[in-house]
């Protein structure tokens, strides 16, 4: 092999099956005797169930069974929350898979029908008669904590799910002695992730063997197996979870869902395989949501704009129950990231988790870090306006200087490596920032607030991902490890299987992992097949989320390959009748120093190891290695993004003209895939800034309950995304890589938001709530009319909030 594939944008090996319609997602799978489940969901945001009559449904054509909460109670255990953060009074309230006495959000399950086909199951749902006694609802997480608010759970007074505080330095002192304090109220609206594949599960139970198999659209089949064991009571080794082709997740397929457990329950009761697939309308209310913060945030600085402190009080909506990983998101993945790429000596995050009558909240792409980046970058712009400096200048003076091997921030994290100013410079140079500002000033001086108004947003970010190490996971209450494992198996023919515990679902890591193998052992990339997504055939893995798969799973794989290389060197020395110390390796060839033409290829080594005819004394046959890799630190990718928007002041319409993303995720294994991750992430973040948001009415009805009403980004609404990168390796993992799956979303929401505010500032508009719909923008312009001024951000929005 002469061409290095590590670092090459080779085409994805996943694609042939995907572009021909030959891939099998869960709902595509058919089993002999398969029957179909449909779930009846609460139409009320909060209600007591006073009666339920399933007799007509049970007698309907094709119906095999109807089950309610009375049937599952005592058989299925409550859904567990797997992230119970210490010292924060987490109320892990009972979360029954089917509600029996009280429904707490629109979408809560009330009954399940199993029928011969899906149409019959759906018909029968309409024949179930449920008597509800409606109860008052509360949707806004801050309102839910006020006295007199409707109460969701008896054992969670004031709807408080938890209270978590993290601090570094002395924020009271920093704010008391600051020249400048800026503050804002930020609403991180509730978002609905909408992976294109709806959730689905097929459960098949073999009563004679006590074995349960679940095909499931999940990001983490091994965790799904573990939780299935807890909920069904079946032993873990009798459960197999298969994640077939999975059509996107974005966090919404991390949680282990009650509906999957109900599907398993039906299969176990009936002895027939049962499929449940949600409709998209069902997805909107029953699959987890993201974000949902009400934040009071402030930043302290001196008169030059040098920042000394940041602090918050955040009400983070959890929805009606605690989803699998929910408490960790606004805390560990949010509150700990208030330093971002900046040197800020005093930080405090004061976070309340709050129950509301809405769909449970989970990770959604970025999970806590977009919210942290948003508040930092928003406050940086407010500081810049307050001290009368360019937003870039204020950021630059606050950035942490370049470091290559660890940097401690005030809140207690140790970043791995960073060159924040370097990446900012690349971004500014690429867009010709000075020229952009010059053109903007010229336009402003000539159009006097008419015609399209150009706005420029610049953001710097640093985020925490590549989740492990496990010791930290344990210390922060995560109910599992955060290591990964990988087995590399060479066959006698020289072909290779990689068995890996992580479970990519669109990120292309079958290709990335094959490239790692090729790099480490010189095997042709097409000789490697990567197996993932099946608990029976892969070693343990904790899943694909938190941009950890390439970092942690790839690390495990690289280390397994290196173990094989060590064995191959020993075996080559034996076969070449040389000392091990004299064996060299290059491009898949093991040879005595100076004699590369008489070496042994990795394929020859694999053959000999597998037939074992001539092995060194004491060496086991086979060429296979497994590594359980627990990273010593998280990874901290970073970047600088620039957005240019035009706002039409006559109708509030925003056009995203340009988006530039400069990101540093260390060495890129496949740059084409890296760019693809950035494109998609940026547009998802743009969705939050401009279009998306869950809207509930006062009764807890989701008004944005379909793709008609919930506005997802579409092709004609976004520009090409300009991607650039720098390379700063992480010193903390074998490949030096950092996650890239979430950075786009982490940076783009606030970058676009800041660009819009930048456009409107001359009109006196200094804050808006997302999404920045034309109506909101237009109204803000009208309200600011006649009050045009050039500064004033941060004034008039202070909140008496007992900081």
């Amino acid at each position, binding site marked *: 092999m002469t061409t290095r594939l590590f670092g090459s944008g080779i085409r994805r090996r996943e694609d042939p099956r995907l572009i021909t319609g030959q891939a099998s997602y869960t709902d595509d799978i058919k089993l002999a005797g398969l029957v179909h489940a449909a779930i009846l969901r609460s139409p009320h945001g909060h209600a007591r169930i006073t009666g339920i009559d399933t007799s007509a449904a049970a007698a309907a054509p094709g119906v095999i069974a109807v089950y309610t909460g009375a049937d599952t109670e005592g058989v299925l255990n409550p859904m567990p929350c797997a992230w119970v953060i210490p010292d924060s009074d987490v109320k892990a309230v009972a979360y029954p898979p089917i509600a029996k006495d009280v429904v707490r959000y629109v979408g809560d399950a009330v009954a399940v029908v199993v029928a011969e086909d899906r149409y019959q199951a759906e018909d029968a749902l309409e024949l179930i008669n449920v008597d509800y006694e409606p109860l008052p609802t509360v949707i806004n997480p801050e309102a839910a904590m006020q006295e007199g608010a409707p109460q969701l759970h008896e054992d969670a007074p004031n709807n408080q799910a938890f209270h978590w505080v993290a601090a570094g330095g002395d924020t009271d002192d920093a704010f008391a002695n600051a020249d400048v304090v800026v503050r804002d109220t930020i609403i991180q609206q509730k978002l609905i992730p909408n992976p294109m594949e709806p959730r689905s599960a097929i459960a098949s139970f073999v009563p004679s063997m006590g074995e349960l198999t679940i095909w499931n659209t999940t990001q983490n089949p091994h965790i799904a197996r573990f939780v299935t064991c807890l909920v069904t009571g079946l032993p873990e080794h009798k459960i197999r979870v298969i994640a077939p082709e999975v059509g*996107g997740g974005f966090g919404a397929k991390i949680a282990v869902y009650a509906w999957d457990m109900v599907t398993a329950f039906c299969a176990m009761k009936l002895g027939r395989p049962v499929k449940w697939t949600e409709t998209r309308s069902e997805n909107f209310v029953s699959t987890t949501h993201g974000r949902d913060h009400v934040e009071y945030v402030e930043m302290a600085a001196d008169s030059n704009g040098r920042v000394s402190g940041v602090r918050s009080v955040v009400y983070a909506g959890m929805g009606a129950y605690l989803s699998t990983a929910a408490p960790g998101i606004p805390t560990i993945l949010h509150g700990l990231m208030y330093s971002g790429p900046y040197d800020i000596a005093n930080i405090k995050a004061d976070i309340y988790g709050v129950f509301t009558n809405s769909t449970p909240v989970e990770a959604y792409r970025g999970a806590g870090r977009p919210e942290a980046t948003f508040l930092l970058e928003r406050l940086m712009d407010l500081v810049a306006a307050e001290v009368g400096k360019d937003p870039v200048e204020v950021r630059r003076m606050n950035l942490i200087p370049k470091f290559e091997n660890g940097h401690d921030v005030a809140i207690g994290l140790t970043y791995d490596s960073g060159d924040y100013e370097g990446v900012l410079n690349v971004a500014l140079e690429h867009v010709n920032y000075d020229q952009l500002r010059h053109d903007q000033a010229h336009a402003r001086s000539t159009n006097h607030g008419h015609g399209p108004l150009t706005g420029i947003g610049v953001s710097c970010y640093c985020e925490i991902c590549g989740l492990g190490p496990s010791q930290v996971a344990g210390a922060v209450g995560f109910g599992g490890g955060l290591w990964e494992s990988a087995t590399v198996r060479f066959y006698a023919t020289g072909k290779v299987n990689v068995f890996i515990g992580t479970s990519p679902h*669109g990120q292309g890591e079958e290709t990335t992992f094959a490239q790692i193998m090729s790099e480490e052992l010189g095997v042709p990339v097409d000789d490697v097949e990567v197996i993932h997504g099946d608990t029976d055939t892969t070693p343990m893995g904790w899943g694909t989320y938190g941009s950890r798969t390439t970092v942690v799973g790839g690390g495990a794989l690289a280390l397994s390959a290196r173990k094989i290389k060590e064995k191959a060197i020993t075996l080559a020395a034996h076969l070449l009748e040389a000392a091990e110390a004299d064996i060299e390796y290059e491009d898949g060839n093991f040879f005595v120093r100076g004699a590369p033409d008489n070496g042994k290829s990795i394929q020859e080594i694999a053959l000999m190891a597998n037939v074992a005819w001539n092995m060194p004394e004491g060496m086991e046959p086979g060429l296979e290695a497994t590594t359980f890799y627990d990273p010593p630190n998280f990874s901290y990718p970073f970047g600088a993004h620039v957005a240019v928007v035009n706002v039409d002041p006559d109708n509030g319409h925003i056009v995203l003209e340009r988006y530039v993303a400069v990101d540093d995720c260390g060495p890129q294994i496949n740059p084409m895939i890296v760019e*693809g991750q950035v494109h998609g992430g940026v547009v998802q973040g743009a969705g939050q800034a401009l279009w998306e948001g869950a809207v509930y009415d006062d009764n807890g009805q989701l008004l944005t309950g379909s793709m008609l009403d919930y506005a*997802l980004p579409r*092709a*004609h609404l976004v520009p090409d995304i300009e991607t650039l990168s720098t390379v700063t390796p992480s010193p903390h993992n074998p490949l030096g890589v950092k996650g890239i799956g979430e950075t786009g979303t982490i940076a783009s929401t606030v970058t676009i938001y800041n660009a819009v505010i930048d456009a409107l500032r001359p009109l006196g508009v200094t804050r808006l709530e997302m999404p920045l719909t034309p109506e909101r923008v237009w109204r803000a312009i009208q309200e600011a009319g006649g009050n045009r001024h050039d500064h004033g951000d941060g004034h008039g929005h202070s909140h008496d909030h007992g900081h």
Partner: protein
Amino acid sequence: MKVPIKLTVNGRSHESEVEARTLLVHYLRDDLGLTGTKIGCDTSQCGACVVRMNGATLKSCTCLAVQADGAEVTTIEGLAQDGNLHPVQEAFWDNHGLQCGYCTAGMIMTITELLDRNPNPSAEEVRAGLEGNICRCTGYHNIVKAALAAAEAIRSS
């Protein structure tokens, strides 16, 4: 009530009896086993289920199977000929025009029709033509790139 229908799918003729209310997408997936066509929503918004019927694009979740009686339907499975990928499929592969793959069949079918109508579209025309198809992974960047590359490949072939 079962209704007899006769139609051609990917060049093969089928005679079936279907419930009158059966959606075309369910007929394709469940009766014919052509699961390459996906169901992404229930409001005709996402375009994952796009097939071509008598040459036109059609959201097969919004059409009854009985309405396809007598029609010629092409699904993603019928696009490659003699083991050769269609240029749009090839372009999606070359340009990383897909990630999770769930919207891909609908995207590819839509673009084949778009290029039949307009063999030399601008990027803006491609984007406008994809208004009825949602992708959550790619940000559309590489889908547009793939469509333009396919257009060029078809023009120069």
